[in-house]
C-alpha cells in the first residue's frame, strides 16, 4: 500500500511527459500530399484498399499539437462553417460519419484541397504544419485521439462536452448522403 503513491506519481509524471512532448522546430516544408490515400473502402481484386502512409500519430497523440489545432480551428474560421464540430453550412465533424473519409490524411486533404460542395481549399493559405495540427484536432472532436491528449475545458461558452470527455465516436441518427448526392441533375 505504501508503495503505490510513488508509482502513481511516476505514472502521472510519465504521462504528463508524453502530453508535453513537442517538436519545437517542425520541418518548414513538411509534405502533405505524398501519402497514398483511398477515398473509398472498396478496391477491385483481392487485397482491399491500400494502407495509409501517415496516420498522423505524431499530431494526434500530442496535447500541444491538438490544443494548437483547436486554436487554429477558430483562427482560420473553420468554426464559422462547422461550429464547434456540430456543423453549420459545412457538415458536422464530431460525428462518426464522413463524406470524404475520417482518416488523418483524408482530413488533411479535405482542408488542403477543399471539397466540391463548399469546402474551401486552404492550400497555400495555411502552412502544412498547421494543417496537420488542425487535422489532428478535427479527429479529436469525435475523440479518435487518446483521451489524455485531447483538449479539456473551453475558456469560452461551453458549446458541448469538451473533447477529452467525449466518448470515442458514438453513432448519431441521420443520413450520410453528401450534398452532391442530393441534387437531381
Amino acid at each position, binding site marked *: 500500500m505504501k508503495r503505490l503513491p510513488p508509482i502513481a506519481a511516476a505514472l502521472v509524471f510519465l504521462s504528463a511527459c508524453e502530453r508535453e512532448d513537442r517538436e519545437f522546430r517542425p520541418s518548414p516544408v513538411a509534405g502533405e500530399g505524398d501519402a497514398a490515400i483511398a477515398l473509398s473502402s472498396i478496391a477491385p481484386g483481392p487485397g482491399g484498399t491500400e494502407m495509409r502512409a501517415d496516420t498522423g500519430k505524431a499530431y494526434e497523440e500530442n496535447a500541444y499539437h491538438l490544443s494548437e489545432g483547436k486554436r487554429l480551428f*477558430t*483562427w*482560420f*474560421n473553420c*468554426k*464559422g*462553417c462547422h*461550429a*464547434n*464540430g*456540430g*456543423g*453549420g*453550412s*459545412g*457538415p*458536422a465533424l*464530431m*460525428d462518426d*460519419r464522413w463524406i470524404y473519409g475520417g482518416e488523418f490524411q483524408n482530413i488533411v486533404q479535405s482542408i488542403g484541397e*477543399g471539397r*466540391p*460542395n*463548399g*469546402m*474551401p481549399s486552404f492550400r497555400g493559405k495555411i502552412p502544412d504544419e498547421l494543417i496537420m495540427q488542425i487535422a489532428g484536432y478535427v479527429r479529436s472532436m469525435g475523440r479518435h485521439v487518446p483521451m489524455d491528449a485531447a483538449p479539456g475545458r473551453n475558456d*469560452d*461558452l461551453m*458549446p*458541448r*462536452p469538451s473533447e477529452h470527455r467525449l466518448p470515442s465516436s458514438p453513432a*448519431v*441518427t*441521420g*443520413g*450520410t*448522403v453528401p*450534398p*452532391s448526392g*442530393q*441534387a*437531381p*441533375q
Partner: protein
Amino acid sequence: MPTKDTAATRYSGLSEITTDNVKDLRVAFTFSTGVNKGHEGAPLVVGGSMFIISPYPNIVYALDLTRPGAPLKWQYNPKPDASSQGVACCDVVNRGPTYSDGRLFFTTLDAHVVALDAETGREAWNVKLGEINRGETMTMAPLVVKDKVIVGISGGEYGVRGWIQALDAADGKSLWKAYSTGPDRDVKIGAEFKPFYEQDRGQDLGVATWPPNAWEIGGGTVWGFTTYDPELDLIFHGTANPGPWNPNQRPGDNKWTNTVFARDPDTGEARWAYQWNPHDLHDWDGINENILVDVEWQGKTRKALVHPDRNGLVYLLDRTTGEVLSANFYHPVNTHQGVDLKTGRIKINAGKYPHENEVIRDVCPTAPGAKDWSPSSFSHQTGLLYIPHNNLCMDWESTEANYIAGTPYVGAEVRMHAGPGGHRGELSAWDVVAGKEVWTIKERFPVWGGTLATAGGLIFYGNMEGWFKAADARTGEVLWQFKTSSGIIGQPTTYRGPDGKQYVAILSGVGGWAGSIVSGDLDPRDGTAALGFVNAMADLKDVTTKGGTLYAFALP
C-alpha cells in the same frame, strides 16, 4: 409574385374555401422536387401553369395545371456552382420566382439572376452579380417594378457589403445599384433624401458611423421581400445585420445596416430611411417584410408600412415620411425597452450588452429574432396582421472575429433555447392600429414559413412538424390540418385553377436556419451548431425528415 401584390399583403380575394367547408379540403396533386434542403419558396401560379423553384441547385419546374395531375411541362436547371453551398449561412434556400410579362425571374445560390420564357422554359438572359469567393450568394425572390427587376445580395455572415440593384427586365442590364454602407454617393443618398429622425441625418453616415474601412466588409445585405407603392412611386426594402455579429469590433451606429429604405424605383435614389437597430447587438437583420396598408390613425387615414422586426416590435410607420407611429412588443424582450417615439431610437438595456468574452445569459429574443424572414399576411377582411414567429431566447458570447474573404465573419458563440412558456413558435393575429395581439396559436417549433390570408376567412400556414393548417382568421381556431411528408417552412399560395376551382398549395421540405439540423444532418450534441440554433432544435430530428414535395389542395 410570392407576396401576392406589391404591397405584400398575401391576402387573396378567393372565397370558395370557407371556414364552413375547409374541413373537406383534400389533396388534389403532389410533386416531388427531388431536393432535400429547406424549401422556403412560394409556388407561383400564372394562367394554366404553376412555377416552383427548389433550393440549391435551384431547379425551376413548370407544371401544367390544365391537365389532370398537373404534369411537368418543363424544367430548367441553372447548374449553380456547387461551392456556393458552403457560403450560404443558413441552408441553401430560395424564396421563389417572380413572374412578369411572359417571363419568370429568379436568383440562384451562386448569385446569378435568370430570366426564362415562362411558356417554354428557355433562358432569356442570365447575369452574374456576385462572387461566391467573397461569400456573396442570392436567395431572395425578385420584385418586378415597371420593367425593372429588383434584386439584392445575401451573405451578411460573410462580411459581404450589401446592395440592392435594378436590372432591365428586357436584357438583365444593370440600371442602378445602391450599397447599404459607404459614402452617400454609393448608398444613393442625395438631395431628395429626407429622413424623419435626427439620428438618420448627416453626411456620409455610411462611413462616419464605422471604424475606418469597416464598412467595406460591414454587411447590410438585402434579401427580404421588396414592396412597391405605385401611387407614391416608391419601393421599400430592408437591409440586414452588420458584420461581424460581435458589436465590440464596430463601435458606432453602423449605417445603413438594419435599416428600411424608401427609394425611387427609376433611379434608386433614397427618399427616406429609418434604422430599426443602430449598432446591432444580436444579428437583427432589418429585412423582415414591410407590408403596405392604409390605416385610420388618430382620426386620419395614413399611408402606413407595417413591419414586425427581429427585435420583437411590430412597427407602424408612415410610409411617406418614415415616421414611427407606434412600435409594440409581440415577443418577450429583455434586451431593450422599445422605441423612444420622439427620437425614433431604440432604448437598449445595458445589462444585456454583449461585451467581448463575457457570456450573457437568457437574451430575448435571439439572433434569428422574434421573427426571421417568414412573411406575415394582412387580411383586408379582418384588418389583422398574421405573424408567424419564434419564441426563443439565447446565451451569447462575443468573440474576436477574423475577416478572411469567403469564410464566415461572425465572432459570436450562441446557444438558443425555448422562450418563456417552453413552446418555440407562434402564429399571432395582431391588430396593427391598437398594437396588440388578438389571438395566438402556440407551436412546438418556430413557425418558419409564411402565412396566407383569404377572403374565405381563413389563415393558412405550416409548422415544422409537417402539419399544414387552416385557422379561422377571427378566432384562431384550427379548422383543418393535413400532415405533409416533411416539416414546412414554405409560403402558401392560393389560386383559381383552370377548372374554376380554388386551390391552396404549399411546398413541404424542412430546412432553413431553424431546420438545418435535419437538412444538414447536424450533430445535436453541439449546441452552437447552425450558429446556435441547434441547441433549441435538438428534437426536430425525432419528428421529421428531409425531402421536398409540393402539395396542392382543393375541395372535392
